[in-house]
């Protein structure tokens, strides 16, 4: 059953000569329970697609069905109401409200539904427990680490039982260990039946996805289903081609990508295993320390 069905959706900005095509007749169908990673260079139309899927924006042309309901032509207020019930956002910069404590931040979407405060906070507390931050309920966002903040943001996205969670580079501001925590939380959320749409620049993260969509110049140039834990072939071909020229270095091709490329996908899988072993070792070591 499709959660999202896009049919020939275009998005144009500007008028006349200055018209830019952000999305060019994109068709996309996402089924319930999928974990879709969307990849593509900057300016490929990822953000425009996300904004339309997230009902923050309206397509210029084309049809969009969310949960079987046509939403392409809805007015701003109707879209807001759809957003509050059916879409959960996770942003790169967390976007927690600095003046509210963690619990209130998580409960924020429910206030717009007119839910009573007790019910709101109860539900928010349950969500925080789910993301493993029960002991941070009354912290202010400032007092959280990046990884914790993003987990709070995920709890906020989950609280209204959305049809789809849209995560726009959720690990973009995080270090690698926090990234892994956040991605594993998302994978966990996915396992419990949620549909997730992940925008990322990092091909490594496509391991968590069940499907990868590649965008370029406003169109979808590749759409591949892959097993969880694998980096899809397209990701390899598009991102791991040898790009060893000085120009590339100057253009700022990330060191991380080059590292990944050296190791290759299988190696990196091993590497992941080895990190797991390492963490296990670390845990046992700390346990020993604890017993001592």
């Amino acid at each position, binding site marked *: 059953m499709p959660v999202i069905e896009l049919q020939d959706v275009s998005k144009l900005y500007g008028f006349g000569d200055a018209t830019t095509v952000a999305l060019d007749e994109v068709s996309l169908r996402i089924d319930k329970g999928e974990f879709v990673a969307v990849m593509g260079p900057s300016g490929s139309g990822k953000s425009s697609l996300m904004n339309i899927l997230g009902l923050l924006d309206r397509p210029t042309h084309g049809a969009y069905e969310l949960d079987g309901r046509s939403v392409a032509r809805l007015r701003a207020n109707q879209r807001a109401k759809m*957003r509050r019930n059916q879409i959960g956002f996770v*942003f790169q910069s967390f976007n927690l409200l600095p003046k509210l404590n963690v619990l209130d931040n998580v409960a924020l979407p429910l206030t717009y539904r007119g839910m009573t405060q007790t019910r709101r906070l109860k539900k928010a507390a349950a969500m925080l427990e789910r993301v493993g931050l029960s002991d941070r309920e009354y912290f202010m966002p400032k007092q959280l680490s990046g990884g914790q903040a993003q987990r709070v943001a995920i709890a906020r996205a989950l609280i209204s039982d959305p049809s789809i969670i849209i995560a726009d580079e959720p690990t973009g501001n995080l270090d690698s260990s926090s990234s892994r925590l956040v991605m594993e939380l998302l994978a966990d959320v996915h396992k419990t039946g949620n549909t997730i749409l992940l925008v990322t620049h990092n091909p490594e993260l496509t391991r968590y996805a069940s499907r990868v969509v590649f965008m370029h110049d406003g169109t979808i140039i590749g759409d591949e289903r892959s097993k969880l834990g694998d980096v899809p072939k397209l990701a390899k071909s598009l991102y791991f081609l040898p790009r060893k020229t000085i120009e590339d270095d100057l253009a700022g091709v990330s060191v991380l990508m080059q590292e990944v490329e050296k190791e290759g996908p299988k190696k990196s899988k091993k590497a992941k295993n080895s990190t797991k072993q390492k963490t296990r070792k670390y845990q046992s070591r700390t346990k020993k320390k604890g017993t001592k």
Partner: protein
Amino acid sequence: MLGNDIKLAVKSIRSAKWRSFLTMLGIVIGVASVVITISLGQGVRQQLIGQIDHLGSDLITVRPGRLVNRDIAGNITSVNLPAFLGMSSLSENDFRVIKEAPGVGIAVPFAAVNGIPHNDSVEMPDALIVATNENAPAILEQKVEFGAFFSQEETTKEVAIIGQRVAEKLFNENVPIGKSISIRDRTFVVRGVFEGFQSSPLTPNTDYNSAIFVPYEAGKRVSGGNVQIYQVLAKATEKKKTKTTIQAINDGLLNAHAGQADFTILKPNENLIITNTVFNLLTGLIGGIAAISLIVAGIGIMNIMFVSVTERTKEIGLRKAVGGTNRQILGQFLIEAVILSLVGGLFGVMVSFIANILIRISTSLQPVITLPVILISIGVALVVGVIFGMAPAIKAARRDPIEALRHD
């Protein structure tokens, strides 16, 4: 939703205490000046009404100059304020005309005597020296508390009956009977002290607590044979004949003044009208200042709300992303503006209460703050908040969520 908005607004106002305080200050001043002005007016009116009740509704006041204009039915249409400053006076002949008009029971002249009274070295420059006749206590419905008033036969005798404040100021005691007051080169012996008069400040009526009453002829002698009768009070023989008596006095005076109505006959309640006119002028003036202050305060609120909306663009974007509708965002910011001005209004009322106490302590005025005044002024604060909070709230509500989320 509303409770939540209020809580949020309070949080946001408290997070910028100084800014909020300074923004509120305008509303505080505006509301306080509105409340103080109205309460002063009401206080004076109440004091005057008390005085009129005391004097009785049949007291006829005759004053020099044409103070008021009347329509054909005899109702006051307007008040000539400059006439109050005029130097005209009633003559002794006028007094005689009034006294002998048909229907008049008693008539009492009130003439101002020049000179500063003093007792040895103590002077009392703000005392009023009134030359009058033996019927003054009767017409003022005022008892002489200690001693006695002078009689008809004593009109040339140099005695004085004084108000309480004169006793305190000149003699520093309550009952200075037998002591003497010097006025110019004459010495007046204190014969009696009046009971406390009900005063009504800021009205054309004088405060007789600061007055020295002397017999008419004696007072005239002090002034070199010439006194200014600034008013004549009269009463009809019977209360219900007051109207015809006024007519008789009017006819008599017109006759004596060769047909020119350069005098004014007032009924007690008409005194109230004159006071109202004076007060409406004052109230209008201060009210205008208060209105300007409230408008400026409103602009201050609008300004600070615009700043707040810009600062919180990202918050607006997020709130919209998680499902806040335009109306809900508008409500949030509008409520913040309204709370800002409402709290300012409450502070303003508090300030006016403090000012009220200070005014009562330091002057003879007795401002009265009534519930409707408080409600009206808080209502005004509310309206200011809504009017000036609307534009920033609309701006917030209309933000595009995508751009707002991208904003830093």
